[in-house]
């Protein structure tokens, strides 16, 4: 392979194409480029873009999936915001952002500040912290169902530290179910944030820290004047990934609480699935999916604006 590169490298100068021949070849190449793009584009448009547009269309219909559909105007959207079960689901998803995004990012930053000097054996730790990222969320959910159950590890741990009085079936409790669900996200996402930030901080110029030290700045000032600005990109991306995970959650809710108790942990994904495939209300399911997408876009845009570099 290197042979090819070296050999052709030698011939660069003598055979350099005259300027007038170039535009034609470029046009040819640009057309040729479309051929390479076509298969990916076809699959992407047919199986992702078109269904997305189709969902928007379905959201303006009243349809049970079988009988002819009836135009419904914005009535499905009105339902999304006024129905006593749908509105709260959106709200739950937004609450989950606190547990999936805000707490893990804060935790990751704190850990980064603590660990900045770096330690040996970080690879092994990193591998453990990253583990929740690769596992199927269904299995994660089942694991935590057991963790939170009456005899589960969480209650055992609380008894151990003398808090036996607060033990309960956390996911089945009306008041604690959503928080318990959220903490599964905290557990899963904290490692991701931390690994992202720790790898980002390695590229910071050590001289900057020395400059702050010369100025008499302590670790706190080092963190806020050097580390945090340097991690802007990583913080943005960690927030975006974890926020999308919170808003679009489905798998682990499906196996842990399935929306219960009494709809305390419903999320939009769960209701889109239920409405479309259990209750045959395609219009409302589609409208909810569209609203969810808009919420995702609003949050992602907001994160990008907030973390944008101020000139």
């Amino acid at each position, binding site marked *: *392979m290197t042979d*090819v*590169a070296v050999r*052709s490298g030698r011939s*660069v100068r003598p055979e350099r*194409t005259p300027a007038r021949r170039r535009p034609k070849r*470029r046009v040819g*190449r*640009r057309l*040729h*480029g*479309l051929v*390479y*793009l076509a298969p990916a584009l076809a699959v*992407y448009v047919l*199986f*992702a873009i078109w*269904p*997305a547009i*189709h*969902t928007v269309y379905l959201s303006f219909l009243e349809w049970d999936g079988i009988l002819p559909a009836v135009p419904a105007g914005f009535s499905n959207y009105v339902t999304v915001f006024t129905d006593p079960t749908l509105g709260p689901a959106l709200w739950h998803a937004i609450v989950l952002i606190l547990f999936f995004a805000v707490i893990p990012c804060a935790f990751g930053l704190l*850990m980064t500040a*603590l*660990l900045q*000097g770096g*330690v040996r054996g970080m690879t092994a*730790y990193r591998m*453990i*912290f990253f*583990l929740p*990222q690769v596992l*199927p969320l*269904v*299995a994660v959910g*089942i*694991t935590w*169902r*057991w963790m939170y159950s009456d*005899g589960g*590890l969480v209650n055992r741990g609380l008894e151990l530290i003398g808090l036996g009085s607060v033990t309960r079936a956390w996911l089945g409790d009306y008041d604690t179910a959503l928080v318990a669900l959220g903490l599964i996200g905290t*557990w899963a996402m*904290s*490692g*991701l944030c*931390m690994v992202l930030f720790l790898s*980002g901080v390695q590229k910071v110029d050590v001289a900057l820290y020395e400059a702050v030290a010369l100025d008499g700045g302590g670790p706190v000032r080092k963190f806020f004047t050097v580390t945090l600005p340097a991690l802007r*990109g990583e913080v943005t991306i*960690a927030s975006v*990934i974890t926020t999308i995970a919170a808003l679009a959650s*489905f*798998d682990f809710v*499906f196996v842990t609480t399935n929306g219960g108790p009494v709809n305390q942990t419903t999320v*939009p994904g769960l209701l*889109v*699935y239920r409405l*479309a*495939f259990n209750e045959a209300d*395609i219009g409302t399911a589609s409208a909810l*999916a569209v609203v969810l997408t808009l919420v*995702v876009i609003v949050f992602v845009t907001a994160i990008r604006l907030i973390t944008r570099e101020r000139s």
Partner: protein
Amino acid sequence: MNPRVMVAARYLVLTLFAVAVLLPFVGVTLAAFHPSGAPIAGLAWPTEWTWSNFVEAWQEAGFDRLVANSFIIAAGVVPLSLVLATLAAYSLATLNPFGGRALSVAFVLGLTLPIELVVVALYFDLSTVGLTNSYLGVILAETALFMPFGVYWMQTHFAALPVELLDAARVDGARSLTILTRVLLPISWPALTTLGVLYFMWSWNQFLLVIVLMQDPELRNAPTGLGLFVGQFSANIPLLSAASIIVIGPIVTLYLIFQRNFVSGITQGAVKG
């Protein structure tokens, strides 16, 4: 503060967090070796180790079917996605195709779209053409959903290669396909391996798409089968734990082998975006 104390404190913090991450899995693993149906309280060491839960879970959930389905779907998704994403990214990064800039943006925007937006209409679209309850339907749908990341990942990779490499081959008169296969691909194996490993993971873990597009339980993948298994045996912790370990097994094995690729794929892929 004493630097040695600092180092010790760092290890302590790291180890505590590592324990917090691993504890649930330790618990599940221990639970899986208890007799089926036994009540499990906390981190209980099995008095008598038994493999029977794995056998029972495998048979009850029909894992030979489910695991085979998972592999069949992944065997379609991984190569197809790799080829299509590579071709598209090669074009976008080096051939400057008409409309290329707009298409790059279109692919990147796809990274933020939730599956929920696609899945309802996709079910009806695919059922009209007979692609529900079909491996091909799921394979094409997953390929489409994973496309934004793949194109973006390979495009950044190709764009980072030295321009001289391309120019030299072009002046040499090499055709664009030859340049891709003979010049670029041989030095792209690390990027392709990472992408392939991520594709396998996403395909293996896919839940919502499969539960919708495969209405026939016989055709579902391992995580989806596990999701339904929970409903049937929700009180039998040892059995559920064994089933979870069966589903996690292949992906953890892959993670142990390709640890670097997983971490770099998710972190770098994210950061460059």
